[in-house]
C-alpha cells in the first residue's frame, strides 16, 4: 500500500519567492541590484572598481557586495573606489542565494544606495540558476577565455540581460574572434546587447554604469528567450524591475532559508 501525490512544485520556488521579496523591498527603497556572473579571473573586479569610481565621480550612490569562497582581496580592491563594500565568504558554497543576500544586506546597505552591484562567486554554472532579486543580470567574459564560452555555459549567457566582454585590449594578442563570439551569444540569447570593455585602457568603462542607471530610471530590460517561464512557472531572472508585491517597510530581511552559513567580513570603506 502506498500513496502518490502530484506535487508540481518548482524546486527553486523558495529561492524565487525570496528573490521576488528582495526585489520588491529594494524597489520600494529605490535601489536597483545588478548581478554580475563570470568565470574566475575574467576581470569583473577590475571593471567593477572602475565603474564604482565613475559612479562616485558622477554622484551616483553605489555599493558593492562581493562573494568569494575565501579571502577578502576583492573587497579591499573595490573599497579603493570609496564606495561602501562588503565581502561575503561563502565558505565553500559555489553560488549566492537570494535569502543569503538579503541577510547580508540587512543592516548594512546604506539608505541612499541607488545601485547595488553584486559580484557573484566566480563560476558560470551554479550562480546562473539563482535569481538574487536583481533587476539587471550581467554575464561577463574576457577575450582570453575563447569565443565558445557562451556555448559552453548557455544558462549563464542565455539568461543575461547584458553581456560584457572584458580585457578587450588583449583581443589582438590572443586572436579573439569577435564575429564568432557575437554569433555564439546570439545563438543562446538572441537580441542581447554586448558591450566591449577594458579596465586597463578605460575602453567602454561606464557602459555598465549607464545600463544600470537606465534600469534605475525605469528603462526596459532585454527579455532573454531562456528567461521566459515554461508552462506558467517562474524561472530565471525577472524581465522587468519592480513587479511583485511590495514588502512592509522596505525591510530587507527575507524569510527564506539558505544552506550553509557563510561568514562575513563587513568592510565599510572610509
Amino acid at each position, binding site marked *: 500500500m502506498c500513496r502518490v*501525490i*502530484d506535487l508540481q512544485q518548482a524546486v527553486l520556488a523558495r529561492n524565487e519567492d525570496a528573490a521576488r521579496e528582495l526585489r520588491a523591498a529594494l524597489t520600494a527603497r529605490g535601489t536597483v541590484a545588478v548581478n554580475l556572473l563570470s568565470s574566475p579571473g575574467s576581470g569583473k573586479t577590475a571593471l567593477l572598481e572602475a565603474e564604482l569610481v565613475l559612479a562616485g565621480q558622477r554622484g551616483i550612490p553605489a555599493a558593492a557586495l562581493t562573494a568569494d569562497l575565501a579571502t577578502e582581496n576583492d573587497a579591499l580592491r573595490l573599497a579603493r573606489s570609496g564606495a561602501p563594500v562588503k565581502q561575503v565568504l561563502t565558505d565553500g558554497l559555489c553560488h549566492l542565494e537570494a535569502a543569503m543576500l538579503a541577510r547580508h544586506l540587512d543592516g548594512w546597505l546604506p539608505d541612499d544606495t541607488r545601485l547595488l552591484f553584486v559580484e557573484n562567486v566566480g563560476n558560470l554554472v551554479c550562480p546562473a*540558476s539563482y535569481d538574487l532579486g536583481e533587476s539587471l543580470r550581467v554575464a561577463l567574459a574576457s577575450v582570453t577565455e575563447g569565443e565558445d564560452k557562451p556555448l559552453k555555459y548557455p544558462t549563464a549567457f542565455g539568461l543575461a540581460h547584458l553581456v560584457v566582454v572584458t580585457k578587450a585590449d588583449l583581443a589582438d594578442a590572443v586572436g579573439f574572434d569577435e564575429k564568432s563570439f557575437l554569433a555564439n551569444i546570439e545563438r543562446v540569447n538572441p537580441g542581447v546587447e554586448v558591450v566591449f570593455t577594458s579596465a586597463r585602457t578605460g575602453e567602454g568603462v561606464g557602459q555598465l554604469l549607464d545600463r544600470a542607471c537606465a534600469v534605475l530610471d525605469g528603462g526596459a530590460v532585454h527579455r532573454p528567450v531562456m528567461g521566459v517561464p*515554461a508552462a506558467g512557472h517562474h524561472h530565471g531572472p525577472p524581465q522587468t524591475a519592480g513587479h511583485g508585491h511590495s514588502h512592509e517597510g522596505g525591510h530587507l530581511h527575507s524569510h527564506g532559508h539558505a544552506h550553509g552559513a557563510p561568514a562575513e567580513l563587513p568592510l565599510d570603506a572610509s
Partner: protein
Amino acid sequence: MHEMSIAMAVVEQVAQASPEEAGRVESVVLQVGELAGVVPDSLHFCFGLACAGTVLEGAELVAETVPGQARCTACGTGWAVGMPPELTCPGCGDGAGTELVAGRELQIRSVRWADRPAYADQEG
C-alpha cells in the same frame, strides 16, 4: 556544484509536503529540463546524501529529462533546441520571435509514500 543545494531543496519540500500519517518516501519524480543547468548524475549522488536521516532515507529519485523545445512566433517553425541550444529560428533565421516552450523545468512532479511509518512497530 549546486546540485547539493538542489537536492536539499527537494528533500525539504517533500518532507514539508508529507502527510502526517504517511510513512517513508519511496520515490520522488523530478522533471529536469535540458536547459535547467542541472546534471542528473550529480543530482542522483547528492540526493542520496541529502536524504540521509530524513523521511526520504532510501528514497529513489526518478529524473525525467525534458527536451528543450522552441517555437518561432514570426514564422511558426517549431524545433528541438539541442545542447548547446540554438535559439535562433532555423526557419526564418531570426531570433526576435523565439519562444522557449520547454526545457527549463526543475520541478518536483510527484511523490510516492509508503502508507505506514517504517518505524511504527518499534514505537509500539
